[in-house]
Structure formats: C-alpha cells, structure tokens
C-alpha cells in the first residue's frame, strides 16, 4: 500500500495523485499494486459517502482521477501478465424507456472498483437484453436502474423474465423514484439507495 497515493485521491488532489501514480509505476511498482491503492482510496471515499461526509461531486471526481490512473496503468498491466481478482459478475443497465445514466454509471464504476466484473448494458435496455446477457455471462446479480416512474413497469417485466431464466438470480433496483414499495411491486430482491448500498448487496450475494 502506498499511503501517499491513497491520501492524494481521498483528498481530491488530482495533480498530486497522478504524479504519485506515475512516479510509483516508473519506480517499478506493480500495476496491480497501484490499482489496489486506488481501490483502497475508493473504499475510503465510499465509506465517507455512506457516512454522509462526502457526496456525488467527490464520487465523480475521485472516479475521474481513478480513470486517469487506470489509463496510466493499463499498458503496463498487459506486459506484466497480472489480472486483478474478480469476486463476482454483475449485469447492470437502465431499464427500457429510461435514458438516464449518471447514477447507473456511478454504481457500475463502484462495483468494478470493488472487485466485480461488471457488464454495463447502457440505457433503455429491453428485458430480453438483460436476460440474454445474464445468460451469456453467467452473472447471478443484476442491477436495474431507473430515474423516472415510467421505469416501474419495465423493471417488473425485466425481473419476471430474469426469474424465468433463473429463479435464483439476484436483482437489485435503484434510482431517483425507486423505494421499497417499488421493490415489492417489481418483485426485485432488494432496493439500494446508492452505490454503497449496491456494493453491500452484491457482496452479500457474491
């Protein structure tokens, strides 16, 4: 662990974080180590988010710093032959009829950082597409996002089709107008109010 890199990220110090990451890699730190530092930093940011000490701007900005570090790391990753360990597969997307992606992108990113192999299907995703990709990837966890009340029906239809594919599949829902009443209505297993809730749910199911 390189505490100074972790601190630079958690303190939202973009230039310093990138400089430290570049220096560590140049000095021979392994790409996986640097990514582990990023993951540790994101855990700190996530915990602060959960505790109400940081918010969407911090999540987005820290995420952007991480993405930039990932771009530095990637070319070296291929040559090192190392790949990070994944703890489970998740298929995620915004349901049919809804084209909002901000919250869904944050959840997908946070799941990825926390060790999940995430297949992000984007927005306006038909129930059939969720089923097809869950089947292809063998994912046992599906995240359905929706910002508007129009998302309730397609969520319900998607849950039904996923259950028909595999009754044991775990489905979580989240987004602007979602709550536990909507979880009941759609037949999903859980409602998560934010990215940290989604991670906790996915960990419980992985």
């Amino acid at each position, binding site marked *: 662990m390189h505490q100074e890199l972790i601190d630079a990220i958690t303190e939202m110090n973009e230039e310093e974080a990138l400089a430290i990451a570049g220096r560590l890699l140049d000095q021979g730190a392994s790409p996986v180590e640097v990514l582990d530092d990023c993951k540790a930093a994101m855990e700190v940011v996530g915990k602060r988010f959960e505790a109400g000490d940081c918010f969407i701007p911090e999540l987005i*900005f820290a995420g952007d710093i991480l993405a930039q570090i990932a771009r530095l790391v990637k070319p070296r990753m291929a040559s090192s032959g190392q790949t990070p360990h994944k703890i489970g597969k998740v298929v995620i997307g915004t349901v049919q009829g809804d084209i909002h992606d901000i919250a869904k992108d944050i959840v997908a990113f946070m799941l990825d950082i926390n060790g999940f192999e995430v297949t992000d299907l984007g927005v306006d995703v038909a129930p059939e597409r969720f089923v097809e990709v869950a089947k292809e990837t063998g994912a046992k966890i599906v995240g359905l996002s929706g910002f508007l009340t129009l998302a309730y029906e397609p969520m319900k239809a998607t849950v039904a089709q996923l259950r028909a594919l595999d009754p044991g599949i775990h489905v979580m829902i989240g987004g602007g107008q979602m709550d536990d009443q909507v979880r009941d209505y759609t037949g999903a297993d859980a409602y998560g109010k934010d990215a940290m809730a989604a991670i906790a749910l996915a960990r419980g199911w992985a």
Partner: protein
Amino acid sequence: MLPENFATLTPELKLEARLADWMSTDGKPFASPEAAEKYHARAKRYADVIQLREPDRVPTTAFTGDLQQHFTGATLGDYFYDYPKAAAHAIEFFERFPELEYFPASNFEPGPVYDKLGYTLYRWPGGKLGPNQGFQYVEGEYMGADEYDALIKNPDGWLLRTYMPRVMPGVAGLANIPVLLGTTELPFVPFFFAGMAAPPVTAALETLLEVGRMTLEYMGAMGQTVGYAVFGQGMPMTLGGFSKAPFDFLGDTLRGTRSVMMDLFRRPAKVLAACEALTPLAIKMAVDAAAGAGVPFAFIPLHKGADGFMSDADFDKFYWPSLEATIRGIVAEGVVPAMFVEGGYNSRLARIAEANLEPGTTAWTFDQTDMANAKKFFGPWAAIGGNVPGSLFQTGTPETMRAYVAKLMDTCKPGGGFFMAPGVVLDHAKEENFRAWLEAGLEFGKY
C-alpha cells in the same frame, strides 16, 4: 389589469396587485357565472395559502405530466404531434376528474417545433423515442470548460451565438449574427444589416419565423384546453413562468452533471462567476413569463442541490447564494417563486430558513423531504406542499393513499400555508389511486 403606477410599487404591493389581477374575474371570458365564482373561490384559496392565511380548505394541485395520456388512451406522441387530439383528450381528462380544482400542467408539447430546430438536448415521444416513451434529457457536456469566460462576460450573447446553434442546428446561422454595436450609428447600420443578410443568418431567421408560427398553432390548441378548464370550469392556472437555480442552469444542460461536479474542484471560481452571471437572466425569465401570462407564479424545479448531491458546505457555497438571489429578485417583482424541490432537502431546511426570506412570498413543493421538518422550518414563512410519493400513486391502493393523505394533513395542515400535491410530476398512476388522492384531499382538507 395591473395599476398604472405598478412599476413604482413596493414588492409587497406588487404581489398584492398581481394576485388581485390573477384572482379577478372581471373582463375574463368565463362561460358561466358559476365558473367565474368557482374560479375566484379557488384562486383566493390558493392565494391565502401563499400568503400564509388559513383558507377554508387545503387546495389540491398536481402536475399531470403523462397522466392524461395514459388515462384517456392517447399516446405520449399524440401529445407532441397531434394537437387537436391532445386537446380533446385533455378535455376528456378534465371531464373525468371534476374534483380537479387547478389547471394541471401536462406534457402537451410542440413536437414539430423541436424537430424543426433539430433540438439535440432532449429525446421525445413520437420523435426519436417510441410513441409511449416519456421525453428525456440527453446527459452531456454542451458547454466546454474553456467557454466559461465567454458565458460569464456575456451570457445572453453566448447563448445566442454559440449555444443555440449547437443545440438547435436548425438555427445554426445565429452564430453569424453581427455584434449589435452596429446599430448605434447611421453609417454602421448598412454594415450591420449586410451581416444580417448573410445566407446562414437569413436562413436561421426564416426558421425562427416559421417556428414562431408553428408555436402559435400549438398555443391555439393549448388555448382550447385552457378555455375549457379555466374559463369553462373555473380552474385557475398556478404556473405562469419557468426558471431554475443558476447552478442548475449551468449544471443541467450547459456543462452537464459530470462536468459541473468536477468543476467544483477544478475551477470553483468560474462556477461561482457563471452562477452570478446567470442570475439576472434567471430572474427576468421567470418574471417576464409570469407577467405575460397574468399568472404570478414561477415554477422553479431544483435539481443538483438535493441531499446527497453535494455537501452542506458546497450547497452553501455553490448552490444557495445564486438561488437565493434569484428568489429575492423574482419576489421583488411581485411574482411568487414556486420551488419544486426534487429529491430530499432534509439537511437544507434549516440553512434555507436562516436566509429569512420575506414571509408569504414563496411556495415549496417537496418530494422526499420530511414534512414535519418542512413545516417546522418553513411553515412560519413559506407555503409548503407536495410529498405524496409517485410510487404510492402507481403501486399503492386507495386505502394506503387515503391513510397517507390523512397523515400528511395532520402534519402540515394546522395554521394554513399548506397545499396538497404529489411530490413528483405525475406520469403514471393507477386511476383509483389518483381518485382516492383527490377525494382524500377534499375530505381531510377542511379547516
């Protein structure tokens, strides 16, 4: 009619004059004395709530986004492209719900206008979306980080020559409009108009003319629904103009959510300067429209200042100061800013209350905010309402709805200053739940 000396009045008297004009039935084309009487009683009830007097009953208002379409069997696309059909369905909706007391704004929109402009910011039903997909914003960065200075120096000019051509390719030629200093001397004028005569500019101006005519056609159909509801049934309008918090203008459709959030770290001073530069426009936009409509309420949806979106410190620094200035600027002109507070505002209530806004000049419709706290912090100085969840309309039962309304009334009704409303724009609902909501509002709303 407003008094002749209106411009010289204090904000309080301006508000009184605008409300009196709005409430008045004189010279308005009511279909019957009964309609006029209903109109006046309902308008007065609403004005009482705004001005923190206890009315005879809690008024019930709603934004019925796509609800009319779903209940009457029209597609959402019909409401964008088939004006006569949309007007007929809107009227059918009003006939079916005579308990509705105020004209409910809906997603009745001029699709052909957006097509003609090539509007890129949104997708809408019957356009790029299917006939039953609701209109939605396409998240993106529509203003570069390097454009802050241009926006700050001359927001209207930048919007006209850079932003409009970008998001409305149908009027791309506006980019070539010469600077208006060319109108200030006789010998300059020919040069100015030589610039205006350039083919891209004339093409853009012709498109604007046509779009204006198309908008009038749309407004004619909209006028039929207003004629039926307002003048036939006595349903006052409660939405006269629109505006937004300056931070939301900047963050929603200029910089986009991701970019503006990162700007808080990368260029905070520019964000603040841009919000400040947009504030006079945000005020004028609300006041001009409300004054033009004779409906002294400006709808201001609040987006990125919600709980969880940013810290209290960022809210205090980036979001609230320019919103407060906008609210005060609108109030100074005697128009009521009606904030539509999306998401939760629990951690903001006490902070906003500290601003000591003038009592009886603002309205706040809450979504997921704790209403006991809203009443505690806002009740003494502002009209509040909202909070009936969209999910309850869609997935609840008439019984759960009735119970919710009864509890909300218990919490918020005492002392007045409260209106019953959904916490969201209602796009979907079970009809029996919508009806139960209206009936419970009437039943539990009496003082």
